[in-house]
Structures are given as structure tokens and as C-alpha cells.
């Protein structure tokens, strides 16, 4: 703190400090505290606010635990998000390895450009593209019918559509951390493994993957979190049978009219995501400083 004042003088240092404190207090801390407060209170008519009923309890969270449909959707959202992370990892790992170890500098800069461009286009449009591709009378069904792979159009919308759209949407968040991690692997280690008789699979399992552990953990954590908190992919590519937990939260706010319960649901989602992030990072011994790059 003293360094800040010594470096910039009292005027500027005070301006910097107040900007940062306002951000952290009013935009990061206060909203979350208020959300916790909401989540713990019952939904009361205005007249009873502050009355004897208006006390903290875990009723809203317990409601989620006891309501079968919502609980099932909550758990489905978790495992489906984990599945999204796993699928994205499988799709990205070979590409990341190729970019980091095999590609020539020219190929690499083209590859980087090619993977980055789709991700500058916003998530809604990327999801819309999949909506059109997967439509009942859309191009994918038409091509498959023509090739004779299927006899009848398939209804892709639903769990399958949501998975496809999400894997597509989050590729970059998986690819870049893994690429960064593998890039720092010394090539001579790969050659040494080969000279010692290790095959491709073994080299990856014993040399590359352990080295890229941090990058893989980072990619998985981000993908999981983005998938669990996504609204647009399930809304556009899902079906009534494939509802996502965020859609339930949305309904409490804008259709059910019970903000307290909605806040409790949102809080549950937040706690779960943070827990997954922190536990994974601890397990893989990754520092938070390395994550956000």
C-alpha cells in the first residue's frame, strides 16, 4: 500500500485504490452477500417483510434437495457438464499436442488463427449455427439420409444436441491451456522415451500427460464451469426433456416469481462450481495464478 503511494503520489494512488475498492465492494462482494441473504430468507409478501417470519433458514436449499425433478436436473447438469469437459478434452488433446510439438511455425500460426476466429463469434450465433445444422429437416439429416446411413430423420434436439453445441462452444478454453502446457515440454524427452522403446501411447501416458497436467486441469475446470452455467445452448438446442439447471433458476425469477428460491438455486450452483474448481486445482497442484491467462 505504501509502495503504491510512493510510486504514484497521493492523488493518483487514492484514485486507483478507490476505483478498485468500489469494484470489489459494490460489484463483487455486495451482490454475492445479498444473494446469500436472499437465499436464506423465505419468499414473503411485502407486508410481512421484517416480521416474525422473516428469519434465516435453509428451507430454500432443502426445497431443492427434496424436490425430485429439480434435484434430478441438478445432478444431470453436473454429470453432463463433466461429460462435456471430457469430450472436449478428447477432441482437443491430439490437436494441442500437434500444435505444440509437431507443427512448423508457419502451420502453427495458421492453426492458431483458425481455432481463434470461431471464438470471436458470439456464443449465441455459434449455437444458432448448430440449431440450423441439427434441425429436423436440416442439412445433417439430409446428408445422412442421402448416404443411406439413416432411413428416417433423427431428432437431434435434446441431450445430444446440447452436448454437441457445448463441446463446440468451449473448444478454445480447453485447447489453449493444454497447448501452452505441452509447448514447454522439451522435445528431447519425447525422443528419449522413443529411444528407450516406449510406443506412442506409452510416451503420452508417462511423459506428455504428466507434464501437461496443469493445462489439462485448467481446461477441464473452465469447460466444466462454463457448461454448468450455460443458458443459451440448452435453451436453443435442448428439448423439454433435457432441461438444464440454469433454466430452472431462470424460471424461479421470471415465471415462478420466487426470487428467494431462485437465489438459493443460484447459490447452490455457485458453491458447486467453486468447489469443483478449487478441489481440482488442489488435486492437480495448480496455482490460481497460472489459471487465468
Amino acid at each position, binding site marked *: *500500500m505504501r509502495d*503504491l503511494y510512493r*510510486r*504514484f503520489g497521493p*492523488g*493518483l494512488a487514492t484514485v*486507483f*485504490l478507490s*476505483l*478498485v475498492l468500489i469494484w470489489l465492494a459494490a460489484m*463483487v462482494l455486495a*451482490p454475492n452477500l*445479498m*444473494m446469500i441473504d*436472499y437465499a436464506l430468507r423465505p419468499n414473503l409478501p411485502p407486508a410481512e417483510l421484517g416480521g416474525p417470519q422473516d428469519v434465516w433458514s435453509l428451507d430454500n436449499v432443502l426445497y431443492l434437495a427434496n424436490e425430485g425433478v429439480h434435484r434430478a436436473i441438478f445432478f444431470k447438469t453436473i454429470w453432463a457438464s463433466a461429460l462435456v469437459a471430457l469430450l472436449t478434452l478428447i477432441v482437443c488433446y*491430439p*490437436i494441442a499436442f*500437434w500444435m505444440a510439438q509437431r507443427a512448423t511455425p508457419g502451420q502453427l500460426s495458421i492453426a492458431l488463427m*483458425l481455432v*481463434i476466429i*470461431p471464438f*470471436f*463469434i*458470439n*456464443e*449465441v*450465433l455459434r449455437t*444458432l*449455427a*448448430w440449431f*440450423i*445444422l441439427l*434441425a429436423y*429437416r*436440416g*442439412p445433417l439429416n*439430409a446428408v445422412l439420409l442421402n448416404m443411406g446411413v439413416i432411413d428416417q430423420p433423427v431428432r437431434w434436439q435434446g441431450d445430444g444436441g446440447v452436448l454437441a453445441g457445448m463441446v*463446440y462452444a468451449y*473448444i478454445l478454453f480447453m485447447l489453449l491451456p493444454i497447448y*501452452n502446457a505441452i509447448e*514447454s515440454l522439451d522435445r528431447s524427452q519425447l525422443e528419449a522415451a522413443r529411444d528407450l522403446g516406449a510406443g506412442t501411447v506409452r510416451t503420452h501416458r508417462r511423459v506428455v500427460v504428466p507434464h501437461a497436467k496443469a493445462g489439462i486441469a485448467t481446461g477441464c475446470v473452465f469447460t466444466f*464451469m462454463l457448461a*454448468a*452455467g450455460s*443458458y*443459451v445452448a440448452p435453451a436453443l438446442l435442448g428439448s423439454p426433456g433435457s432441461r438444464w439447471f*440454469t433454466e430452472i*433458476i*431462470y424460471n424461479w*425469477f421470471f415465471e415462478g416469481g420466487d*426470487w428467494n428460491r*431462485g437465489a438459493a438455486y*443460484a447459490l447452490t450452483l*455457485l458453491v458447486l*462450481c*467453486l468447489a469443483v474448481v478449487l478441489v481440482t486445482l488442489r488435486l492437480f497442484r495448480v496455482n*490460481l*495464478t497460472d489459471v*487465468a*491467462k
Partner: protein
Amino acid sequence: MTADRIFRGLFALYLLAFVAYLFAPLAIMSAAAFNTSRFPTVIPWQGTTLDWFSAMWADAAMWQALWTSAIVAVLVAAVALPVGTAAALVLTTLHARARSVAYAVMVSPLLTPGVVIGISTLILWRQVGVGGGIVLIVVAQTTFIICYVMLMVMARLQRFDRTQEEAALGLGASRAMVFRRVLLPFLRPALLASGGLAVLQSVENYNTTLFVRGFETPLTVFIATKVRTGLTPAVNALALVIIAATVIGAIAWEIARRRQVTARPRS
């Protein structure tokens, strides 16, 4: 040796499939803007037309949505740039232990699901009687976009040579002058790049915006609503225009970034 060659061939196929996977959906969406079919698709091709572009151009609601998004994006960048820069400066001046705690707090919005940021902002501001609308969209988006600005400015600051500041002070410049004439010009590329990123992040945001929009309809909400209420290729025409604009913007941003990190590999 032959096994190796087969493996390489297979991998080349995989690379091709991957590129196709990245671009086919976008290409199909863009191509559908030129098909006369009322539902956006490419098979069957019923005839080539530019009508959907004029339909999009004539859509007043689309212009309203674009306007809303533009206002929000400019305001977000205007708030996020100074606060993000201040955060980066404060963080880099802190001592090691305080820094790692402050850092965790300051990147926490990036680890929070977007819907949660929207919800908590909506709840807090209801207490003071502010409902969803432009102001709340700006507040909610700025909360996490500040983090991006902060990270980008910090990356640039790491390569700043503090002796430049001391030299300027030794030559009689005031501290405010050193900031304005030495540090700010040094940060300029990072500020430009993060300004661009802030605008992009703001325009493309959906998950957070959805909860705080009130009666406003920014572009992403407009598009997502169209999918539910009646999608025509006019939306594809809009998508094509946005894709073209983003690609041009992305290339410009990339050039700025390369100039900024000249020959320094990211570790």
C-alpha cells in the same frame, strides 16, 4: 515405418475433420442467408436471393437491438478500462502475500458462472429500487470484464522497466506527469487491445445479460428470441454481417496483440 505413415495419414484426416467441424456450422449458417427457403437451411436449395439482407435491413427491432448493444458496449469499455488498469497497478505494487489473496478475489468473477453474476447484481440493485435495464446490464457485464482488462494490462506491466519512472522523476517530472507521459504510453497497446476485447465480450454476452436486461433487448437476446418465435434467414443475414465484422475485428486485434508481445512466446 509404414505403420508410422498410416498413423500420420490418419492424423492428417483428423486435422481436416477438426477444421471442418470448426467451420462447417458457420459456413452453413452463412450460406443459408442466400437461400429463398423460409426456414434457414441449405438443403434443398430453392433459389439464390439477397432478399433476406433487405428484410434484415428493414427490421426496426433489429436496429433497436443493435443500438442497445452498442450503447452498453461503449459504457462497459469506458468503465472497465480505468478500473481494470487501476486494479492491475494496485496488484503489481502489492507485496507477495497480500498480492496472492487480492489476486484470488480479483479473478473470482471469472470463476463465477455468468448467470450467477446476473442474478446477484439483479438482487442487490432491487434493494435500492433499480430494476433491470441498460444500467444494470452495464454494471453486471463490467463486473467480470474488468478482470480481462486487468489481466491484459498486468501482462504488459510485467515487462515495464521501473528505472524509466525513476529517470523521469530524477529529471524533475511530477508523479502525475510520470504516469501520464511514461507509464500510460507504455500501456497503450494493452489498453487498445483490452478495449477491443471489452467491447467484444460485452456485445456477445448472453448468460449474464439475460437476467438484468429488464425490458431491453440487446442483440444476443434478440437473436435467441427469434429462434423461439420464428426464425427466418433474415437472422442468418444478420449473422453473416456479424461474423464478417468479428473476423475483421479479430484480425485487427490479433495484429495489435502481436505488435504488443513482439517475439515473446507465451509461457
